[in-house]
Protein backbone atom coordinates (compact mmCIF):
# COMPACT_ATOMS: atom_id res chain seq x y z
CA UNK A 1 0.00 0.00 0.00
CA UNK A 2 2.89 2.35 0.75
CA UNK A 3 4.28 1.63 -2.68
CA UNK A 4 0.90 2.48 -4.22
CA UNK A 5 0.73 5.75 -2.30
CA UNK A 6 -1.96 4.61 0.10
CA UNK A 7 -2.03 5.04 3.86
CA UNK A 8 -1.49 1.47 5.09
CA UNK A 9 -4.33 1.28 7.62
CA UNK A 10 -4.47 0.18 10.38
CA UNK A 11 -0.84 1.16 10.84
CA UNK A 12 -0.06 4.71 11.85
CA UNK A 13 2.59 7.01 10.38
CA UNK A 14 4.85 6.43 13.41
CA UNK A 15 5.04 2.73 12.73
CA UNK A 16 5.79 3.24 9.03
CA UNK A 17 8.48 5.80 9.84
CA UNK A 18 10.00 3.29 12.25
CA UNK A 19 10.00 0.50 9.67
CA UNK A 20 11.34 2.64 6.84
CA UNK A 21 14.29 3.55 9.03
CA UNK A 22 15.31 -0.03 9.74
CA UNK A 23 13.48 -0.06 13.07
CA UNK A 24 15.64 2.81 14.30
CA UNK A 25 13.90 4.35 17.29
CA UNK A 26 15.84 7.57 16.73
CA UNK A 27 13.81 8.14 13.57
CA UNK A 28 10.86 8.94 15.82
CA UNK A 29 12.12 12.34 16.78
CA UNK A 30 10.29 14.64 19.22
CA UNK A 31 9.43 16.91 16.28
CA UNK A 32 7.94 13.97 14.39
CA UNK A 33 5.89 12.85 17.39
CA UNK A 34 4.64 16.35 18.15
CA UNK A 35 3.54 16.81 14.53
CA UNK A 36 1.69 13.52 14.08
CA UNK A 37 0.61 12.76 17.64
CA UNK A 38 0.30 16.05 19.55
CA UNK A 39 -1.77 14.57 22.36
CA UNK A 40 0.61 11.66 22.76
CA UNK A 41 3.53 14.06 22.70
CA UNK A 42 2.16 15.83 25.77
CA UNK A 43 1.64 12.48 27.50
CA UNK A 44 5.20 11.48 26.68
CA UNK A 45 6.59 14.69 28.07
CA UNK A 46 4.81 13.93 31.31
CA UNK A 47 6.06 10.31 31.15
CA UNK A 48 9.67 11.38 30.68
CA UNK A 49 9.34 14.00 33.44
CA UNK A 50 8.15 11.26 35.78
CA UNK A 51 11.59 9.64 35.80
CA UNK A 52 12.53 5.99 36.34
CA UNK A 53 12.53 6.20 40.17
CA UNK A 54 8.88 7.08 40.36
CA UNK A 55 6.73 3.97 40.08
CA UNK A 56 3.39 5.73 40.35
CA UNK A 57 1.69 5.37 36.98
CA UNK A 58 -1.70 6.57 38.14
CA UNK A 59 -1.49 9.84 36.14
CA UNK A 60 -1.37 7.65 33.03
CA UNK A 61 -4.28 5.50 34.04
CA UNK A 62 -6.65 6.82 31.38
CA UNK A 63 -3.95 6.58 28.68
CA UNK A 64 -3.14 2.95 29.48
CA UNK A 65 -6.81 2.10 29.80
CA UNK A 66 -7.66 3.72 26.45
CA UNK A 67 -4.76 2.56 24.33
CA UNK A 68 -3.38 -0.55 26.01
CA UNK A 69 -6.43 -2.01 27.71
CA UNK A 70 -4.27 -2.15 30.84
CA UNK A 71 -5.22 -1.04 34.33
CA UNK A 72 -2.27 0.66 36.01
CA UNK A 73 -4.16 1.74 39.07
CA UNK A 74 -2.53 -1.00 41.13
CA UNK A 75 1.00 -1.12 42.49
CA UNK A 76 3.83 -1.41 40.00
CA UNK A 77 4.89 -3.81 38.53
CA UNK A 78 1.71 -5.28 37.19
CA UNK A 79 1.09 -8.97 37.05
CA UNK A 80 -0.17 -10.50 33.87
CA UNK A 81 -0.34 -14.01 32.61
CA UNK A 82 0.90 -14.84 29.14
CA UNK A 83 -1.65 -12.91 27.17
CA UNK A 84 -1.39 -10.29 24.49
CA UNK A 85 -1.54 -7.64 27.18
CA UNK A 86 1.50 -9.22 28.78
CA UNK A 87 3.43 -8.86 25.56
CA UNK A 88 2.56 -5.18 25.44
CA UNK A 89 3.74 -4.86 28.99
CA UNK A 90 7.04 -6.62 28.28
CA UNK A 91 7.67 -4.46 25.25
CA UNK A 92 7.05 -1.42 27.34
CA UNK A 93 9.46 -2.65 29.99
CA UNK A 94 12.23 -3.68 27.68
CA UNK A 95 12.29 -0.31 25.97
CA UNK A 96 12.12 1.72 29.15
CA UNK A 97 15.15 3.65 27.97
CA UNK A 98 13.24 4.77 24.92
CA UNK A 99 9.85 5.72 26.30
CA UNK A 100 9.13 8.17 23.54
CA UNK A 101 9.46 5.63 20.79
CA UNK A 102 7.84 2.68 22.41
CA UNK A 103 4.83 4.59 23.64
CA UNK A 104 4.39 5.94 20.17
CA UNK A 105 4.40 2.46 18.73
CA UNK A 106 2.29 0.80 21.33
CA UNK A 107 -0.91 2.83 21.05
CA UNK A 108 -0.96 2.72 17.28
CA UNK A 109 0.31 -0.72 16.56
CA UNK A 110 0.38 -2.95 19.58
CA UNK A 111 -3.19 -2.75 20.68
CA UNK A 112 -4.37 -6.05 22.03
CA UNK A 113 -6.62 -6.52 19.01
CA UNK A 114 -3.78 -6.00 16.58
CA UNK A 115 -1.51 -8.29 18.54
CA UNK A 116 -4.14 -10.96 18.12
CA UNK A 117 -3.88 -10.31 14.37
CA UNK A 118 -0.10 -10.58 14.60
CA UNK A 119 -0.36 -13.93 16.33
CA UNK A 120 -2.89 -15.10 13.80
CA UNK A 121 -0.52 -14.35 10.92
CA UNK A 122 2.44 -15.65 12.84
CA UNK A 123 0.75 -18.99 13.30
CA UNK A 124 0.10 -19.15 9.59
CA UNK A 125 3.77 -18.69 8.77
CA UNK A 126 5.55 -20.37 11.60
CA UNK A 127 3.28 -22.83 13.22
CA UNK A 128 6.03 -23.90 15.60
CA UNK A 129 6.33 -20.41 17.12
CA UNK A 130 4.31 -20.14 20.30
CA UNK A 131 3.05 -16.96 21.95
CA UNK A 132 5.43 -17.63 24.82
CA UNK A 133 8.38 -17.36 22.41
CA UNK A 134 7.52 -13.74 21.77
CA UNK A 135 10.23 -11.42 23.00
CA UNK A 136 10.68 -7.74 22.23
CA UNK A 137 13.36 -8.49 19.66
CA UNK A 138 11.30 -11.20 18.00
CA UNK A 139 8.34 -8.85 18.23
CA UNK A 140 9.96 -6.13 16.20
CA UNK A 141 11.24 -8.58 13.63
CA UNK A 142 7.76 -10.00 13.30
CA UNK A 143 6.30 -6.54 13.02
CA UNK A 144 8.36 -6.05 9.91
CA UNK A 145 7.17 -9.38 8.58
CA UNK A 146 3.56 -8.65 9.42
CA UNK A 147 3.51 -5.30 7.68
CA UNK A 148 5.06 -6.92 4.64
CA UNK A 149 2.28 -9.49 4.84
CA UNK A 150 -0.33 -6.76 5.21
CA UNK A 151 1.12 -4.94 2.21
CA UNK A 152 0.20 -7.87 0.02
CA UNK A 153 3.57 -9.55 0.20
CA UNK A 154 5.59 -6.71 -1.27
CA UNK A 155 9.14 -7.06 0.08
CA UNK A 156 9.50 -3.63 1.63
CA UNK A 157 12.29 -4.82 3.89
CA UNK A 158 14.60 -5.31 0.91
CA UNK A 159 13.70 -2.08 -0.79
CA UNK A 160 13.08 0.37 2.01
CA UNK A 161 16.41 2.06 1.36
CA UNK A 162 15.41 2.58 -2.25
CA UNK A 163 11.97 3.71 -1.21
CA UNK A 164 13.42 6.33 1.10
CA UNK A 165 15.68 7.60 -1.64
CA UNK A 166 12.91 7.64 -4.23
CA UNK A 167 10.81 10.10 -2.31
CA UNK A 168 11.99 13.65 -2.57
CA UNK A 169 11.88 15.12 0.91
CA UNK A 170 12.54 11.83 2.72
CA UNK A 171 10.20 9.60 4.59
CA UNK A 172 8.34 12.45 6.27
CA UNK A 173 7.34 13.77 2.84
CA UNK A 174 6.24 10.24 1.96
CA UNK A 175 4.15 9.99 5.12
CA UNK A 176 2.60 13.39 4.45
CA UNK A 177 1.67 12.21 0.97
CA UNK A 178 0.23 8.92 2.23
CA UNK A 179 -1.97 10.38 4.91
CA UNK A 180 -3.03 13.42 2.90
CA UNK A 181 -4.32 11.16 0.14
CA UNK A 182 -6.51 9.26 2.58
CA UNK A 183 -10.23 10.00 2.29
CA UNK A 184 -11.74 10.40 5.72
CA UNK A 185 -14.83 12.44 4.87
CA UNK A 186 -16.65 14.24 2.09
CA UNK A 187 -14.58 17.37 2.72
CA UNK A 188 -11.53 15.57 1.28
CA UNK A 189 -13.14 15.34 -2.15
CA UNK A 190 -15.58 18.27 -2.10
CA UNK A 191 -13.06 20.68 -3.59
CA UNK A 192 -12.16 18.17 -6.30
CA UNK A 193 -15.70 17.68 -7.56
CA UNK A 194 -16.89 19.86 -10.37
CA UNK A 195 -20.13 19.97 -12.29
CA UNK A 196 -20.39 21.11 -15.85
CA UNK A 197 -22.77 23.62 -17.31
CA UNK A 198 -26.35 22.62 -17.92
CA UNK A 199 -27.41 21.03 -21.20
CA UNK A 200 -30.84 20.03 -22.56
CA UNK A 201 -30.50 16.58 -20.97
CA UNK A 202 -29.68 17.95 -17.51
CA UNK A 203 -32.41 20.54 -17.78
CA UNK A 204 -34.90 17.79 -18.61
CA UNK A 205 -33.64 15.62 -15.76
CA UNK A 206 -33.54 18.47 -13.26
CA UNK A 207 -37.09 19.48 -14.27
CA UNK A 208 -38.28 15.94 -13.54
CA UNK A 209 -36.39 15.95 -10.21
CA UNK A 210 -38.03 19.19 -9.18
CA UNK A 211 -41.38 17.42 -9.37
CA UNK A 212 -40.11 15.26 -6.49
CA UNK A 213 -38.61 18.14 -4.53
CA UNK A 214 -38.11 21.66 -5.75
CA UNK A 215 -34.56 21.75 -4.34
CA UNK A 216 -33.46 18.69 -6.26
CA UNK A 217 -31.02 18.63 -9.15
CA UNK A 218 -28.82 15.74 -10.24
CA UNK A 219 -25.85 17.58 -8.74
CA UNK A 220 -27.72 18.03 -5.45
CA UNK A 221 -28.57 14.32 -5.31
CA UNK A 222 -24.96 13.23 -5.85
CA UNK A 223 -23.68 15.62 -3.19
CA UNK A 224 -26.43 14.56 -0.82
CA UNK A 225 -25.53 10.91 -1.39
CA UNK A 226 -21.80 11.48 -0.83
CA UNK A 227 -22.43 13.26 2.45
CA UNK A 228 -24.75 10.54 3.72
CA UNK A 229 -23.96 7.40 5.68
CA UNK A 230 -25.44 3.99 6.28
CA UNK A 231 -27.59 1.58 4.31
CA UNK A 232 -30.58 3.22 2.60
CA UNK A 233 -32.67 0.05 2.57
CA UNK A 234 -31.57 -3.01 4.55
CA UNK A 235 -33.58 -5.73 2.78
CA UNK A 236 -32.56 -4.49 -0.68
CA UNK A 237 -28.94 -4.15 0.37
CA UNK A 238 -28.84 -7.69 1.79
CA UNK A 239 -30.11 -9.00 -1.53
CA UNK A 240 -27.39 -7.08 -3.36
CA UNK A 241 -24.43 -8.07 -1.16
CA UNK A 242 -23.81 -11.38 -2.97
CA UNK A 243 -22.94 -9.34 -6.08
CA UNK A 244 -20.17 -7.48 -4.24
CA UNK A 245 -16.55 -8.49 -4.68
CA UNK A 246 -15.48 -8.54 -1.05
CA UNK A 247 -12.79 -5.89 -1.52
CA UNK A 248 -14.93 -3.32 0.24
CA UNK A 249 -15.14 -3.62 4.00
CA UNK A 250 -18.85 -3.12 4.60
CA UNK A 251 -18.35 -2.82 8.35
CA UNK A 252 -17.40 0.83 7.74
CA UNK A 253 -20.63 1.63 5.93
CA UNK A 254 -21.87 3.83 8.76
CA UNK A 255 -18.73 6.00 8.70
CA UNK A 256 -18.72 9.35 6.94
CA UNK A 257 -15.64 8.27 4.97
CA UNK A 258 -17.39 5.29 3.36
CA UNK A 259 -19.33 6.85 0.48
CA UNK A 260 -16.68 9.37 -0.66
CA UNK A 261 -14.10 6.59 -0.50
CA UNK A 262 -16.04 4.07 -2.61
CA UNK A 263 -17.02 6.84 -5.01
CA UNK A 264 -13.35 7.65 -5.60
CA UNK A 265 -12.48 3.94 -5.66
CA UNK A 266 -15.15 3.08 -8.24
CA UNK A 267 -14.25 5.99 -10.45
CA UNK A 268 -10.46 5.82 -10.31
CA UNK A 269 -9.61 2.29 -9.20
CA UNK A 270 -7.98 3.61 -6.04
CA UNK A 271 -9.61 4.28 -2.66
CA UNK A 272 -7.21 7.18 -2.06
CA UNK A 273 -6.75 10.49 -3.82
CA UNK A 274 -3.92 10.69 -6.29
CA UNK A 275 -2.17 13.98 -5.74
CA UNK A 276 0.76 12.84 -7.84
CA UNK A 277 -1.16 13.49 -11.05
CA UNK A 278 -3.51 16.33 -11.81
CA UNK A 279 -5.72 15.23 -8.95
CA UNK A 280 -9.15 13.73 -8.88
CA UNK A 281 -11.48 15.65 -11.10
CA UNK A 282 -15.01 14.37 -11.20
CA UNK A 283 -17.65 15.88 -13.40
CA UNK A 284 -21.32 15.23 -13.57
CA UNK A 285 -22.61 16.24 -16.95
CA UNK A 286 -24.78 14.82 -19.66
CA UNK A 287 -23.89 14.22 -23.23
Amino acid at each position, binding site marked *: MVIYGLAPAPFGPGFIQFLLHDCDLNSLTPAFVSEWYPELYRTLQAWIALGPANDDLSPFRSHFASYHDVDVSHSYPLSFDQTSAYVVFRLLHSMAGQPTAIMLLVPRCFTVQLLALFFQHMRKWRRSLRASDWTPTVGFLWCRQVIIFCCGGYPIQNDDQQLRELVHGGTEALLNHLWTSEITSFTNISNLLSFSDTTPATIRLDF*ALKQVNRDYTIQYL*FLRFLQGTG*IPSNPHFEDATHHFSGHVDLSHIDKKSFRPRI*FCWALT*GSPALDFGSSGLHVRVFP*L
Partner: protein
Amino acid sequence: MQVCESDDPEYVPLATRIARAALASEGKITFKTCAKQAKVPVAFIDKLIQQPYPTNSTPPFLSFEQAFDHWLLSELISCIGAHTIL
Protein backbone atom coordinates in the same frame (compact mmCIF):
# COMPACT_ATOMS: atom_id res chain seq x y z
CA MET B 1 -19.29 11.06 -14.00
CA GLN B 2 -21.54 11.60 -16.95
CA VAL B 3 -25.27 11.22 -17.20
CA CYS B 4 -25.84 9.66 -20.63
CA GLU B 5 -28.63 8.43 -22.87
CA SER B 6 -29.23 4.68 -23.17
CA ASP B 7 -28.08 4.62 -26.79
CA ASP B 8 -24.75 6.32 -26.07
CA PRO B 9 -22.15 4.13 -27.88
CA GLU B 10 -19.65 4.75 -25.07
CA TYR B 11 -22.09 3.38 -22.52
CA VAL B 12 -21.13 -0.33 -22.23
CA PRO B 13 -19.19 0.04 -25.52
CA LEU B 14 -18.90 -3.65 -26.35
CA ALA B 15 -22.58 -4.42 -25.83
CA THR B 16 -25.18 -4.65 -28.60
CA ARG B 17 -27.79 -1.93 -28.84
CA ILE B 18 -30.41 -4.21 -27.25
CA ALA B 19 -28.09 -5.29 -24.44
CA ARG B 20 -27.12 -1.67 -23.86
CA ALA B 21 -30.76 -0.67 -23.51
CA ALA B 22 -31.36 -3.58 -21.13
CA LEU B 23 -28.39 -2.63 -18.96
CA ALA B 24 -29.49 1.01 -18.97
CA SER B 25 -32.96 0.04 -17.83
CA GLU B 26 -31.36 -1.80 -14.89
CA GLY B 27 -29.32 1.30 -14.03
CA LYS B 28 -25.90 -0.28 -14.62
CA ILE B 29 -23.16 2.36 -14.52
CA THR B 30 -20.18 1.98 -16.85
CA PHE B 31 -16.89 2.79 -15.10
CA LYS B 32 -13.67 3.54 -16.96
CA THR B 33 -11.13 3.86 -14.18
CA CYS B 34 -8.22 4.66 -16.53
CA ALA B 35 -10.07 7.74 -17.78
CA LYS B 36 -11.59 8.32 -14.32
CA GLN B 37 -14.93 8.37 -16.03
CA ALA B 38 -18.34 6.86 -15.44
CA LYS B 39 -21.49 6.88 -17.53
CA VAL B 40 -24.83 6.93 -15.76
CA PRO B 41 -27.93 6.07 -17.83
CA VAL B 42 -30.35 8.95 -17.51
CA ALA B 43 -33.29 6.70 -18.36
CA PHE B 44 -32.90 4.82 -15.11
CA ILE B 45 -33.00 8.00 -13.00
CA ASP B 46 -36.11 8.99 -14.96
CA LYS B 47 -37.62 5.61 -14.10
CA LEU B 48 -36.86 6.11 -10.41
CA ILE B 49 -38.51 9.53 -10.54
CA GLN B 50 -41.64 8.36 -12.35
CA GLN B 51 -42.47 5.21 -10.38
CA PRO B 52 -44.95 5.53 -7.50
CA TYR B 53 -43.77 5.35 -3.89
CA PRO B 54 -43.97 3.10 -1.99
CA THR B 55 -43.05 0.94 -4.95
CA ASN B 56 -44.94 -2.20 -5.88
CA SER B 57 -41.81 -4.35 -5.41
CA THR B 58 -41.28 -6.68 -2.45
CA PRO B 59 -39.87 -5.23 -0.28
CA PRO B 60 -40.93 -1.79 -1.47
CA PHE B 61 -38.82 1.36 -1.66
CA LEU B 62 -40.53 3.93 0.50
CA SER B 63 -39.24 7.02 -1.28
CA PHE B 64 -37.38 8.20 -4.34
CA GLU B 65 -34.43 9.22 -2.17
CA GLN B 66 -34.17 5.73 -0.68
CA ALA B 67 -34.31 4.12 -4.13
CA PHE B 68 -31.73 6.54 -5.57
CA ASP B 69 -29.29 6.11 -2.68
CA HIS B 70 -29.64 2.32 -2.73
CA TRP B 71 -29.05 2.17 -6.47
CA LEU B 72 -25.96 4.41 -6.40
CA LEU B 73 -24.48 2.71 -3.33
CA SER B 74 -24.96 -0.77 -4.81
CA GLU B 75 -23.54 0.25 -8.18
CA LEU B 76 -20.43 1.81 -6.62
CA ILE B 77 -19.69 -1.16 -4.36
CA SER B 78 -20.42 -3.83 -6.96
CA CYS B 79 -18.10 -2.26 -9.53
CA ILE B 80 -15.13 -2.31 -7.13
CA GLY B 81 -13.96 -5.73 -8.09
CA ALA B 82 -11.40 -6.92 -10.55
CA HIS B 83 -10.05 -3.47 -11.37
CA THR B 84 -8.63 -2.36 -8.04
CA ILE B 85 -5.08 -1.83 -6.87
CA LEU B 86 -5.82 -3.41 -3.47
